[in-house]
């Protein structure tokens, strides 16, 4: 077990280096560069000014020099400064947006698992009945409806026609004057629509997954044995079957770790939430290399760690893996 862990951790380093190299090359392959995006079609910008900007960002150096420089800074955990006109440290730009994205995603993830797992189980238990079909229709509706459309409808209904919820953003104007609890309630109200809609849209995947593993487990021999022994149906389902059906869910949880700092561009744009999705999108559109690389590096780390944790969790939970490999 320990050897397995060490091997897995050592494997992460070359993998990480490879990821940085590939992302660095790919982002530079995209046409255009930061200076261009800032100055194109602007009559005020002369060729000399453009050259000056390129030198300022170090874009006049060969690519391998730029990569080496960036990597050596990264080794010191310095993500560099953004190539946007604000020229702020990348880490500042990321860290001011991570808290909101992270909390939104964590709440949405808890809701998603909290709702999707029971839905999946119920659907599996009542397989091919009206309940199952109803649930399918409901979750697929959430999956199929375009988020932005549903979001706009909800904004119009709850914000304009029956103004009970704020339309977009995170705080009301004047919320600075409220007490601590008032501010929290204000924030919570702003999050109702985005989180509800995000959760609704993501129920389908997980609940269908849960349903299919549950159906599979329920058809196995040991379940039949349990039922034959006269074990109560509740116990069969929630004790015998669920334990095994939940195993693949651990992997899914691990996979969702990097997703926690990623945001959806469309979603954040519609709800005017200053999150990571928007930041990344703007970074890509402006060819803000250090920012894009910074976000990708953090994402890559989380993916690697997430995979590792998932594997470990699996090994802990499933004796077959623990003893089979190792």
């Amino acid at each position, binding site marked *: 077990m320990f050897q397995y862990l060490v091997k897995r951790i050592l494997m992460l380093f070359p993998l990480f280096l490879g990821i940085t190299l590939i992302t660095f090359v790919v982002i530079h392959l995209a046409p255009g560069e930061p200076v261009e995006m800032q100055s194109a079609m602007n009559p005020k*910008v002369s060729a000399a000014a453009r050259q000056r900007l390129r030198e300022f960002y170090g874009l006049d150096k060969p690519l391998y020099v730029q990569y080496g420089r960036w990597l050596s800074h990264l080794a010191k955990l310095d993500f560099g400064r953004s190539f946007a006109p604000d020229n702020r440290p990348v880490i500042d730009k990321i860290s001011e947006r991570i808290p909101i994205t992270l909390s939104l995603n964590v709440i949405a993830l808890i809701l998603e698992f909290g709702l999707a797992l029971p839905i999946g189980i119920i659907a599996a238990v009542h397989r091919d009945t009206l309940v199952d079909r109803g649930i399918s229709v409901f979750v697929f509706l959430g999956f199929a409806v375009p988020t932005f459309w549903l979001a706009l409808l909800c904004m119009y209904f709850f914000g304009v026609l029956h103004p009970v919820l704020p339309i977009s953003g995170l705080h009301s104007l004047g919320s600075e004057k409220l007490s601590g609890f008032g501010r929290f309630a204000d924030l919570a109200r702003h999050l109702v629509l985005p989180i509800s809609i995000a959760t609704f849209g993501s129920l389908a995947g997980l609940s269908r997954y849960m349903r299919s593993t549950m159906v599979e487990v329920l058809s196995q021999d040991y379940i039949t044995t349990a039922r034959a022994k006269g074990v109560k149906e509740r116990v069969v389902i929630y004790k015998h079957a669920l334990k095994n059906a939940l195993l693949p869910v651990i992997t899914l949880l691990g996979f969702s770790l990097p997703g926690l700092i990623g945001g959806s561009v469309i979603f954040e744009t519609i709800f005017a939430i200053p999150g990571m999705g928007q930041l990344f999108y703007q970074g890509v559109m402006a060819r803000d290399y250090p920012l894009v690389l910074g976000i990708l590096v953090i994402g890559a780390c989380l993916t690697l760690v997430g995979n590792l944790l998932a594997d470990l969790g699996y090994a802990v939970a499933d004796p077959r893996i623990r003893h089979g490999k190792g």
Partner: protein
Amino acid sequence: MKQFRWFFLLILLLSAGCTEREPAAVVKPRPQAGTPVHGDALVTGSIGEPSNLIPILSSDSASSDISGLVYDGLVRYDKNLNLEGDLAQSWEVAPDGLTITFHLRKGVKWHDGAPFTSRDVMYTYRVTIDPKTPTAYAEDFKQVKSASAPDPYTFRVVYDKPFAPALASWGMPVLPAHLLEGKDITKSPLSRKPVGTGPFIFKEWIPGQKVTLDANPDYWEGAPYLDRYIYRIIPDNSTMYMELKGGTLDMMGLSPVQYQRQTNTPEFLSRFNKYRYPASAYTYLGYNLRLPLFQDRRVRQAITSAINKQEIIQGVLFGMGQVARGPYKPGTWAWNPNIRDFDYNPARAMQLLREAGWVMGKDGILVKDGKRFSFTILTNQGNDQRIKAAQIMQQRLKAVGIDVKIRVLEWASFLTNFIDTGRFEAVLLGWTIGQDPDLYDVWHSSKTGPKELNFIRFKNPEVDRLIVEGRGTFDQNKRRECYYKIQDILAFEQPYTFLYVPDALPAVSSRFRGIEPAPAGIMHNLIKWWVPKAEQRY
């Protein structure tokens, strides 16, 4: 179905205690006169977030929206788009046109209380031309041969040759020398917390959410009536429209469809005033003059004759715009109202094409020397109006036997792979119309190099001469003569088919009084906007 109920229960729980907002649909009478009073705030929205509030370091419109209210320049454009003194009380241009002397306003204070003097102007000039400053705006200031500040309230610049756009270039916001001198401007905290001399004082910037400005009680022109200006960042136009209707936004620029089709309800009109005036921009179809196909003037004239500009304005802008015939905004002093252009006339188009040697082929497309008349219009992604305009033109050109293909490209690859390399046939793009009518950058033959803006390679010695003459004199009548002639030549040569000047369509909450629409728009007298006590909200 238990989960179903949880779901809604949750919404109910989280939304409990949220009825403090007034019902939005109260119709109030609107007295127009009255004595202005202080108080209330204007909440406005922007798609983009400012990038850097030191004006010489940024070029996005959100940054300049904010820095325009926080900083002042030496000169500014008044509501009729004529230059007037701002931080300069007056100025003189020497008879030879080479020396400009600015007499600075006395008693103006920076927001932190320090006095404003010629040292600040000198610093702004020096830091802008400093090669270490990553600014896009050094060019105009580099024309300056020498600058001097003989006393704290006089600033003098000398040029090599008379340069008319020079005067307007001193509208560049003046930066506070006492906070910046001797420091690295790229790392200055002022980029997030600006200190200026303007009508509004910077208060806070919550990243990704809003920028708040407070009225400057000591503003040299008098304190603004509004106490605050709040600039919310709302990246999506539909969301912004919801916020406007929900009463949480006071002002936004409407799209033509919103203006024409969605806001003509009594309910909306009782709560908002809508304004309409030409925007400072035009959309055009530009031809690559490197290609033999477009080198024939008759072909360009024919295409313009085959296009119905009015129809494009109806189809794309719901009528909210006007026909463009040249590079100026209708109604401004450089705009020539008597331009003879090629109006929509397909018969004339076909005749011109016949004269140019094109004959109708079997498939309904013109042919010359065995080649079909076919070209591609390139335009950028993310602008629906341009794509629709291209489709309307495609139909009209087909009718005279021209096969048009449309290709939509992401901005960066559009520039890098097509514009910079000259590998395009025709482009559908737009230009912002600058306040100074100088056309050097877009139309002079020396500006056809890589990454320069005369990318269609228009070269006309007469236009070159007139451009140079126009920027070489401060006499507005002489300049107007030059620009009138240039517009005549462009209308005849048709290097672009000028399509339309769209209208700006702002809607402002009806509680604001004192708004005065003018050629410069509505924001020029923001400091005079006010709200009657009874209607104040914030």
